[in-house]
């Protein structure tokens, strides 16, 4: 190393460290509780997501991912087939605009305490760069009230640790990671408690 000044060398090293570490700083999940009352959540149903993107099958994919991850977390989940049959029967095209009475009916039939739904706001896959923006809400089936919502925006790049390690380059992997993190966040906040 033939640096004229030692200070320049130290600055160079510092800069490299700063760049490589910058990818480790993550954007947080925005979760807001809409009621002060805590509900007993023993059984959950996942409704189809309202998809604002061109990826048609993303909604089905996310429903499956939420279902799978919740079952893994030992939460009782209503089988997505039963949810789909119910929505088809009630002629509900967009679960975003479902009224309290129908939610009550859903509770009566499936026993679900809350329903999870939401919107896929943005999804893109350009080469190795993937991006996904989700808005997820939870509604009580007994009152129809919104209990909490989560806004989460992520890029594959956000998971880069050092150099190219850790980066996510597929939409499904990013979605899976995001779903995992959302459920973890809800669990940490104590939203998914069956015993009160």
């Amino acid at each position, binding site marked *: 190393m033939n640096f004229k000044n030692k200070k320049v060398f130290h600055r160079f090293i510092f800069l490299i460290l700063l760049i490589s570490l910058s990818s480790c700083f993550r954007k947080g999940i925005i979760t807001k509780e809409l009621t002060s009352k805590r509900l007993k959540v023993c059984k959950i149903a996942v409704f189809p997501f309202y998809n604002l993107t061109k990826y048609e099958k993303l909604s089905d994919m996310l429903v499956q*991912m939420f279902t799978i991850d919740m079952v893994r977390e030992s939460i009782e989940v209503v089988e997505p087939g039963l949810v789909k049959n119910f929505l088809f029967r009630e002629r509900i095209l967009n679960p975003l605009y479902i009224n309290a009475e129908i939610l009550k009916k859903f509770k009566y039939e499936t026993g679900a305490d809350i329903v999870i739904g939401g919107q896929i706001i943005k999804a893109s896959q350009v080469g190795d760069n993937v991006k996904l923006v989700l808005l997820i809400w939870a509604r009580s089936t007994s009152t129809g009230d919104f209990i909490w919502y989560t806004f989460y925006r992520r890029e594959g790049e956000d998971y880069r640790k050092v150099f190219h390690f850790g980066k996510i380059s597929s939409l499904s992997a990013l979605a899976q990671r995001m779903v995992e993190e959302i459920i973890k966040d809800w669990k940490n906040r104590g939203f998914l408690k069956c015993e009160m």
Partner: protein
Amino acid sequence: MRLKILFFTICYFFIFIKIGFTQIAVFPFEDFSGNEEVNIKFAEKVASYLVTQGIKVIYPQEVIKELIKLRIKRIGVIDRVVAREIFLKLKAQYILLGSIYELDKEVPSLCVGIRILKAKNCKLVWSKIFSFCGKDYHSILGIKKITYEDILKKCFKDLFAGFKEERINVMYSFPVLEIEDVIFKTKSVKPGNTMEVALKLKFSGPKPEKLMLNVGDNKLIPLLKTGAYYIAFWRADLKEGKYPIILISKWNKNWNIQKKIFIGSYTVDNTPPQIKLEFWGIKKLANMIAFNRYLEIRPKILKKEKITRWKLEILSKKNKVVVMEEQLGDLPSTFFWRGVDNSDKPVPPGIYKIRLSVWDEAGNFKVVEKNVLVVKKPPEIELKALKIDNKIKIIINVKKHIIPIREMRVEIWDNKGNLIKKLDKKELKKGKVVLDNLPLNLNYEIVAIDILGNKLFVKDKINPQVLKKKKKEEKKTPKAKEWVHEF
């Protein structure tokens, strides 16, 4: 009776003890990766892997045959009836459903999710997801490249890691009923009117002996089979309110069970919708509202209620319909009327009645009316000039206007621009003004604006008429009152 139940229980125990071995029915996988909608090959690979792990499986090819019989349209969406049929016919205690989210052999990348349900009650017991993209894999020094086969091995290992068979102690499985479709003729009725509900039901196992609806106040209505549907009709309660409808199914023989399913509710409504009309773009007069350009009508429903039909009429003073619009469905939030009739011609000034009729779902109807004054014409001022011996006589006639005039003036100028005469609102209010002995070659300007803003503005030269002696009127032969044959 007790002995009978014991006998049947023992019988079922012996029947089902035979199928007590744990078997998993592997359904064809749903494919979201865009290649195909259904992926059988992948499901077969999963089934083969499970066999190597010592688990008894029913291969997807066999499952498909049963699914065809059950008329399943979409793989991955199953209900309790299908699950129970699989349990009974294929003797499978578990159902494995899978979804492929990403599959690319070239990159390679794979994302698969599986869920295992208990066939007996359609309850999710196990699920896992596997996701891996070759691009995200970086071996040490980049020596080894990962292949699709490597990912597949990793996938199967990961998906079923920790999966344990649960011995199900099922002696018998209860019959299952699923609602496929519910049709309400109407969800809101007048007291005493007929309510009608049609249900499409799906069964697995014996059909219930009794099928009825509890329509509130423990009133039980039997369901009658008509074609593919079960129909029930009854007279609605006389009391206003909301009544729940619950489907009750009873299996007495052998089972002695009863199931209740809430299917919806109906409302008895005898109150007409509460509605109010709000107007925008208007001028409030002493006891009337008036407009000249357009009228914005905003109907406001005071008590939230579903409107099924509406009719808007605009009637003239003689109750002749000028505009009529009628439609089924929700009431629009705003109506606009530009003071024209159905053929788009402006209506003559006057009072018009706006009548809005609305019907709710039960058929109760309400009419609201409001009178509106329409004035689209500006005030009229007539100027007549007569030439008498090189002098001009001007007669100004202010015609009656339907609403008060805000501003009004008449100015007479000569050719050089000197003001000869100016008449203001006070003088013109009399109706008729006569000006005598005015010189020739004059110009005039008339301005009149009413309170709605209709404006009259005329600026011109005065062209006096020369008075001529009246001609003697020719005597006209009177018409014969009776028909004359000589023509």
